[in-house]
């Protein structure tokens, strides 16, 4: 456990030192600012509310969870694996007295930490923006639900990240992984539109999982099913990814 902890700290520090985390943060803030500008513009221009104080964070989430968050998750996952493969850094990592499973787990956990941090920062800033610019009454319950929506979005994003980790262990170059991931993401989205009866099985659809948690009639069965689906995906991606990682010669 101590070894895992050390490896994790090491991975998080590596991520933290990379500029991508910072860029992700800056872009997230830009989205909030642009979103707020759009809401204020719509309000003063057309007299339409656009989004209230509680709705604004959910609006931001609905946009980022399908766009920049998967994108940066992919970049970070690629960085953690392909980046180190190509720069022969993995050899350095593996010389440490830590098993490959622990290295793999530490990397994956670091990605999860990155996603969660990104979500939390987005949540805090979008809430601030929401309260500052949309001075509508907000109930505590509504705020609670918004926080819940942000936190549980970690699960689908993390599942997606595990899928990308699997890709990084199949393909060598980080660039090809990135493009394959983006194309696959778009293809799965398109598939969901044309074969709507299967949409609920797709990872891209589960990115909107947070919506279920906001429902007035809490659809417990559906939430449970989606969770099991994501868990199934995650287990498959994780084991397949680790198998390839373990077999790799560095």
């Amino acid at each position, binding site marked *: 456990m101590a070894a895992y902890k050390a490896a994790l700290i090491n991975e998080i520090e590596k991520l933290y030192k990379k500029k991508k985390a910072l860029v992700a943060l800056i872009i997230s803030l830009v989205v909030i600012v642009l979103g707020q500008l759009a809401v204020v513009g719509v309000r003063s221009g057309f007299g*339409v509310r*656009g989004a209230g104080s509680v709705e604004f964070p959910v609006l931001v989430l*609905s946009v980022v969870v399908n766009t920049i968050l998967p994108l940066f998750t992919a970049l970070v996952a690629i960085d953690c694996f392909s980046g180190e493969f190509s720069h022969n850094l993995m050899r350095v990592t593996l010389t440490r007295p830590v098993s490959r499973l622990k290295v793999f787990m530490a990397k994956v956990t670091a990605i999860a930490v990155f996603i969660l941090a990104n979500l939390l920062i987005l949540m805090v800033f979008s809430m601030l923006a929401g309260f500052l610019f949309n001075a509508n009454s907000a109930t505590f319950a509504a705020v609670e*639900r918004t926080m819940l929506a942000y936190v549980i979005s970690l699960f689908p994003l993390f599942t997606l990240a595990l899928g990308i980790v699997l890709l990084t262990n199949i393909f060598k170059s980080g660039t090809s992984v990135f493009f394959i991931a983006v194309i696959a993401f778009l293809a799965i989205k398109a598939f969901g539109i044309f074969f709507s009866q299967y949409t609920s099985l797709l990872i891209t*659809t589960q990115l909107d999982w947070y919506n279920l948690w906001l429902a*007035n009639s809490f*659809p417990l069965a559906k939430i449970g099913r989606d969770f099991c689906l994501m868990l199934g995906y995650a*287990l*498959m991606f994780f*084991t397949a990814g680790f198998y390839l990682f373990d077999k790799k010669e560095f």
Partner: protein
Amino acid sequence: MRISKKAALPVVFTVGILLFASTALADIVSKSGYDTLKDGLKQSAASCSEKFNNFTLDYSFVIKYNGEIISSQNDVKKFDRLNGATEDSSRSLSPDGKVSDSYYYTDKNTWINGTDIGTGNEAYYYTEYTQERQMDVFDNPFKQDEAEDVEKIVDAVVGSLKDHVVVQENADGSKALSGSLSEVQIPALVNAVASLQVKQAFSGQNSYSARIPVLTQDIYVKQIEGSATVNSDGLLDYILATVILSGKDAQEQAHEITMETLVKLTDINETVVQKPDLSGKKVKRTTERNSAGPQISNPEKFIGTFKNDIIIEQDGKFVKIGERILQIAHVESANIAGKYSEEYKEGFETYAQNALTFTFDATTSNQAKSDAMFEFRDNDGLNRSGSIYLDEANAKVYFNLNMSNGPYDSVFSPVLE
């Protein structure tokens, strides 16, 4: 230790597959409330257009402000699919408190439209068709070509909101569906577009301004609620949708407007559509030719000369340089024949060189029944087509030539002196 982990890998992977597969199966099999609603809608539409002999659709729409009804519309449509007859009575209440009723009845041979019903000043327009019309009283919207695409788009837009429809199964096999979306759940784009529409509707440009304050800011859709029942036969026989809007007036005062729509499918195979008894009522009768516009009672009146002016612009003025002359020599229901010519005034001989003259023999084509089509040869010896239409009401003839050289006026007036 390490070996056991290796052995664990395939086990965990298999667990993942099993978990995914079993849940996926459960997910596909379990029908969501949204799907139940959609299936009910489809089955009802299919039954209405193909199965039921007759049925009644009851449709009402109400706008409420502060709990008070501002305007409403109630429409009872009776369909008799076997006999191809429909009857529609509606009553509407406008914001200024005026109640108006309207009525219409159609069957294969008749079309009756009532006006000023209930005012004591009732009048009926009674149209009789010379030929029986082929008509379906109810078209299944899901049978249209684009229905499938529309359904896909709707499904995609609705997205994860599908799971907000709650199903409650009753003991008798019927299902009660309900759903409620608050502002957070309504997609921002949908909310913004709907709010804009509301702003236009209640902008004070219409009669609503007398009863509802003009909303100028902070307009949004506060709540959407819906409920429906699917009966034991799988038919959607009742659907109620409520939309609550909120907005502020110029004085920052918040107001709420509620819109309710209710559709009920009732009296299946028990509806009687009866032709109204118009004896003793004010009736205006007309006779129509089947789908070909009004039948001309005595087409011979179109025999004669029709003209219009050939006009050009010269030195900043309109100048008449000649006339187009249309001589109709023969008119029958499916055939119109005559001669077309152009005459130019003195001094415009350059135009006259291209003067068009031909005779035509137009017959009604099957594709465009309102027009009689003909062919002619233009000055360059090319075969061209044209069409002629007789407008009885305005005493005009529309004479179209499919040519693109220069301005041409296709409306001809009769020469009467």
